[in-house]
Each structure stands twice: as C-alpha cells, then as structure tokens.
C-alpha cells in the first residue's frame, strides 16, 4: 500500500498509539481548564466592583483561607473516585484541632501534639475503612456515624470550650517558610496536589482507585484488591482532613469545636465542581483543587463586595449547578483522569 513497506505493522501501530497517548493528556484536562477560566472570570467580576480584589495581598488571603478546604477536598476526592463518600471530614478536622490543643495543654510539644492530632485522622479513617470494606456497610451511613461521633467528641475533649494553642512556635506549621519565599500553607497545597495527581495517574494503585469506582464488581473479577483500595481511600481522606485541621489551628492559634462544621459540604461541592462524579470512576486532583478555589473565591468576593454572607450559599449552589450542567452536556464522556 505505502512506499515504506519496511515499516512493520507493529511499528505503525506504535506510532499511532504514541500520538494518541500524548493528545489525551491535554484533552483529558478539558473540564479543569473550563473551571480555571470560570474562576478567572469570577475574580475579574469581583475586581470590577472592588479593585483591591485583584491584588497580591488578596490572592494570598484567598489561598490562606482556602488552604484547609483545598487539602480536605483532595481527601474527599480520593474517596469519591472509589465510588464512596466521606461525611466525617469536618468533624475529624475539628476534633484534630481540639485534641492537639489539649495535648499541648498537657505538656506535649508542638510536634508530638501534632502527631497525636493526626492519629485522630488515622483512627477515624480506619474505622470508616473497616466498616465499609469488611462490614460492608454503605459509605454514606458509615461516615454519617463517624461524623456524629467525632463531632461530639470535639466538644467532649474540652467540654466545648475553645482552646488557645500552647506551643508558641506552632504558628510555623502554617505560616513558616520551609521553602524561602513561600509560606508553608501554599507549599503543602502544591506538594499534596502534585503528589496525589501523580499517584492517581502514574501509580498502579492509583489506577486501581478509578477501577474500583468504575465497577467494583469487574475490578474484583480482574483481581484488583478492591477492599484494600477502598480502605486506603478512607484513611487518606481522614488523614488529609486531620492535617488541614492542624494547619488551621496553627494559623489562628486557637482550636474550636465547630471549626470544621461548614467544611464538609464545601469539600464535597469542590470535588463535584472539579469534575468528579459522585458515582465514582472519575475526577482529578487538579479539578478538586480548582473546585475548592472557586468556592473560596466566591466567599472572598461576597465579603469584599459586602453582600450578606448568607448569600454565599446560594452563589455556591449556582456554581455547582453550572459546573455539573457543563460537565453533563460536554461532548465527551468524562473518563478516569
């Protein structure tokens, strides 16, 4: 057929699929690009009302305010990709803060107290994972239970009082600079974003997350360790929620029992805006982060303009609706990121 008959059919095939491989990388971030554009449009709209909105200072404020949500959303993303849900993240967030503050009040140094706080995430993540995989209970129900239990424990730990942070150097966790010139909260967001995105795309175990969410039954038939994967997802989600709780108490140097209450729904919203389906099998870390940023930008915009903060909910709700509709009607079906 062609002149170059020296080229074997295998080679032809290789060339063909190599080209495809590269194309799909750009193409698969379509939704994320759309969200990024939407955020820019929103920011510009706010900026037209309040010029200071577009200042570096305000961007830093947005990132600082959004960092806990970003990190928590990454955790929720992992669970959602496997087809589950985690309602307990907000309570784990609060409880971690209270436990860490209480540990410091009992003489533990900042570092040890943080480890104790993170163990909250480990424990609740394991409980969630166990009940979902071994006991076979529905994720919604399981995490609803841990949401309630962890939430109430957050009050019991300090009898409902908010607690100041005892360790005078604890602010370094959030606001210090491990990398010169970059505040830690930004560093953590970037590191976690890159690590999780690479994990999901490049590690076999990451692909398993998508497989399990796509069809747990088929995945099981294929020999993919479904239970282990799901367990890992829930532990990761709780740990990330725990860590974001640590960041917050490091920032405001106070632990509050209700600190994380509003974050759970926001994290789920962020993940959905970012393009993940709550049925599982799709979603990217970039998307989740952008979703969290969008929610934070909306919050910031509402405050700057001076709209009653109660409107935030409505605006965010509309944002989710638009994001979901765009995703629904976009040309290609959304696949595993």
């Amino acid at each position: 057929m062609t002149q170059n008959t020296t080229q074997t059919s295998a080679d032809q095939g290789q060339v063909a699929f190599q080209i495809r491989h590269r194309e799909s990388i750009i193409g698969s971030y379509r939704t994320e690009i759309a969200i990024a554009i939407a955020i820019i449009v929103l920011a510009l709209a706010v900026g037209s009302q309040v010029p200071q909105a577009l200042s570096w200072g305000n961007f830093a404020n947005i990132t600082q305010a959004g960092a806990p949500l970003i990190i928590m959303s990454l955790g929720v993303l992992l669970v959602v990709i496997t087809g589950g849900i985690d309602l307990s993240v907000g309570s784990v967030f609060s409880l971690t803060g209270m436990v860490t503050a209480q540990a410091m009040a009992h003489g533990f140094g900042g570092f040890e107290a943080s480890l104790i706080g993170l163990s909250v995430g480990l424990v609740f993540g394991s409980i969630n994972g166990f009940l979902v995989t071994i006991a076979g209970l529905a994720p919604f129900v399981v995490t609803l239970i841990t949401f309630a239990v962890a939430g109430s424990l957050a009050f019991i730990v300090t009898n409902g009082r908010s607690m100041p942070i005892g360790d005078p150097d604890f602010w370094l966790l959030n606001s210090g600079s491990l990398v010169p010139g970059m505040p830690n909260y930004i560093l953590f967001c970037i590191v976690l974003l890159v690590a999780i995105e690479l994990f999901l795309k490049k590690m076999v175990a990451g692909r398993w997350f998508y497989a399990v969410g796509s069809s747990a039954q088929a995945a099981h038939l294929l020999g993919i360790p479904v239970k282990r994967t799901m367990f890992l997802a829930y532990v990761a989600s709780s740990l990330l929620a725990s860590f974001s709780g640590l960041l917050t108490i490091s920032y405001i140097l106070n632990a509050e029992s209700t600190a994380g209450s509003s974050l759970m729904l926001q994290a789920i919203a962020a993940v959905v805006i970012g393009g993940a389906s709550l049925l599982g099998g799709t979603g990217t870390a970039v998307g989740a982060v952008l979703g969290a940023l969008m929610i934070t930008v909306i919050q910031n915009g509402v405050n700057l303009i001076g709209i009653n903060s109660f409107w935030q909910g409505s605006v965010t709700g509309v944002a989710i609706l638009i994001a979901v509709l765009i995703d629904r009607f976009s040309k290609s079906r959304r696949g595993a990121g």
Partner: protein
Amino acid sequence: MAMARQIVVSVSGLTKAYGATSVLKGVDFSVDRGEVHALLGGNGAGKSTMIRIITGSAAKDAGEIVFHGPSGELRTEAEGRRKIAVVHQELALLPHLTVAENIALPYFANGAALFNGKRAARQAYKALAMIDREFAATSLQRLVGDLSLHEGQMVEIARALASGAELILLDEPTANLTAQETERLFSVLRRLTREGGLSVVFVSHRMKEIRQIANVCTIIRDGRTVVDRAATGSLTDADIIEKMGQAAAAHAAGRTAPTRRAVNGEALTIRESDFSLELKPGTILGVAGAPAGPSTLIATLVGAARSKRWTVSHASWPGSFSSPRQAARLGFGFITGDRSHKGILHSLPIIDNVLASRRVVRGSILTGAHERTECVDLMQALKVKAASIWNLPNTLSGGTQQKLLLARWLGLPSRLLVLEEPTRGVDIGTKREIYQLIRQMAASGTVIVWWSTENAELLEVCDRVMAFDTEGHCAGVIENEDLSEDRLAELTGMAA
C-alpha cells in the same frame, strides 16, 4: 495419526450439589491444545457450574481436575487456573478507563509500582492487534464505556490473551453480535488456535455456528456428559437435539390441538415492509430465534421503542403506542423473563408487584382492601405459596417470582399479551403450570406473542411460530404439520 493428545485440562467424575439439588452428577470433560471445543447443554444442565469449578470460583464435591503444560507436564491447580481466562456474557469491563488500561491493568499486580502507560499501551496493542489491527491502532485511548458490545468483547478477549492464557472460555459470545461481527470473531479464534496454540471452549446453542468454528463438541445433560468430544461433523442437528434432551421433553408433553378456540373479535395485524401477519383473538404466536430480530419486534409491540420496521395494528388502537403506559391501558400486556431488571419491583412487597398492572390499567388512585382480596385470589389461582402478601419478592424462588409477573395480567381483559422468555430459569414443573396459564389466557380471547429461545416449549404450546434467523430477519412463519424441532432449527439456526 496416533499422536498423543495434548491435553490442557481434563475433568472426570465431577459432582457438585447445592444443598439438596444435585447439579453435577459425574461430568467428564477435556480440552486439547489448539482446538475449538463447543460445550452444549440445556438450561440447568450444569455447564456454568462445571466452568466455575474448573476456574476455581466454586469447589467440587468429588471428581478430578488435571491441568497440563505445553509439554504435557502436570501443573498445579493454581498454575493451571492462571492460564485459563473466562469471557462472560456480561463483560467484566471498567467503563471509565481506557481500552489500554482495561486490557493491561490486571497485569500490573504491584500496587506500589508505577503504572507505565506506555508499557500498558504496548501490551494492549499487541494483544488487541491479534484480534483486530485496525481497532487496536485507533482505539487504545478510547474509554471503554463508549464502545459497542462487540468492541467490548474484543477488549475482553484481548485481555485474556494479554494474560498469557492458554485456554479461553467464551460464554455465549455471539448472543448479541451481528453475523459480520461473529465471522470476525471466528476468524480471530481460528487464527489464535491454529497459529498460537490457544484452546477455546465455546458455550453456545447455535448449531450453525458450532459447525462453523468448533472441532469437537461435548454435550452435557442433567449433570452428566452424554456426548464426550464428538467431532462436530459426525453429529446431525437432530442428533444434537436428541442428546440435549429437548426432543424427549417435547414428545412427552405432546402437542395440543390448535382448534380449541373460536373466539370472536378483531384481529391483530403485524407488518414489516412486505410481510404481514394476521392474528385472530386467542392465537398463540411463538417467536423463535436469536435476540436481534425478536427484540425489535417485542420492543415495538410493547411500546418501548418506535420502530420503522414493524407496525402493529388493531382496529381500536392508534398507529403506534406512545408509551408502555398507553399500551397497557389499551389492553396490552407484557411479561418478561428478565425478572430482575425489567419485571419485579424489588423493594415493593408481593401485593404491589402483583397489582402493578391492574392499577395502571384501571387508573387506580387509592389502594384498598379489595386489592388485598384480589391479590390473594390470584395467588391461589396460580398456586403461589407465600407466607404473606406483604413479603418482599426476594423471599420467593425465581420460578415463583415469574408466576407473580403472570399474575399481573391473569384475568385482566387484554387484547395482546407479549411474553419475553417467560420461563427463563424456571423448573420443569412450574413451566408446565405456566404453559397451562398461557393457554387459559388465550382461551379468554387474548392474542399471545411469545418469544423464547427454547424452541421446544414453543412447539408445545403455540399455534404458529415466527422464526427469525441469526441475521435478525424473519425467516418464515410455520404452523400445523410444519411445526417441528427440525424445521425450527433449520430456520433459526439454533439448536435449543
């Protein structure tokens, strides 16, 4: 040539019982290298159970399974099973992942390792190209959820090949394929077996296909091997039918004379381009053949699809139905054998399941005590035993659930009742009861259109049978003396 057989796996004297039911009663089965082996048997004969035992999904009660390597050496069960891949009728695919990933992912066993997309693509390409080079070149990065059933099947087979399987078990692979796709599949299988030494076991009912592709066939009946590795050329269709035990059942039941009804009323007409069929009230029309053809007809009759091909008309009906609800209210009913997906309302109790159609037809707004009595009466008429009408359907056996679906329409004056494999997965005793009920319904003036892949039962109860061939075209309508297993098998190309 007195060559020693190169056996891949051999099974002897396999028995298995589930509780009190004995499914396998000493089955023998063996597969050679490089052969295409057809596995035949009626519903409930034990094929699936035997396959599951061979692949390790179920444990045997007694018997021997032996696996051999390429040079005849013995293999352990674990090793042997690793070399077997099953492609089920419901494909085990991950819709959100790409073709390449679906093929290659199972073989990245170490979760902590990097997922090498390029290596996966290469592996996938190699396996898929053996099947369909063009498809392999264009589709590696497509999402499996976007593929057609046929393409999905190719992906599954590629995955089996990529695993290094030496034996692939295909469970009714051609059930939903067009003739063209079937031929493509067969040429792939031929090539793989002849050139690659792959062994293929092929479960199917379709005699034409079996002859096309299989070297040998084994027939299982009632948990025993009745034909062990016969060359397909050495058996006629009649032989096969007889061995499968279908003919016996058909003879035993006997045909009831078709002259039982002389009901008055308007006839129903079914039309397709130049073909037209008039059905008088009380006629039982059977529809036989591969799913492709009958399913379109059924869907049109039910009002679930608007087809340009088929039209169904009755004096009192509109040109075509706008919805199943409209069809129901105009005296039209539908009973499916796909209980789980299309029939039973799983979360509702028995009473709601039974009365579902009545409520639609009558336009009921309120439920009430009269319904309870009605339900109990119906269940008695059908000899359905249930502890309470408020129990959920899953407390009943499959056959009993099927009777519930029949209860929906029993006694409701209907013009047309469409049955879609209504005795699927039902035991022989219940089947007979169902046949009787169908005759009763016909006697009250309803036209029955009955699609079944079990030719035998159609022969037993129907007046006329419309046969569809494997391409999905209507091959003819046979009745009276013409109605026989052979004629049906001839027209449809299917043995059972």
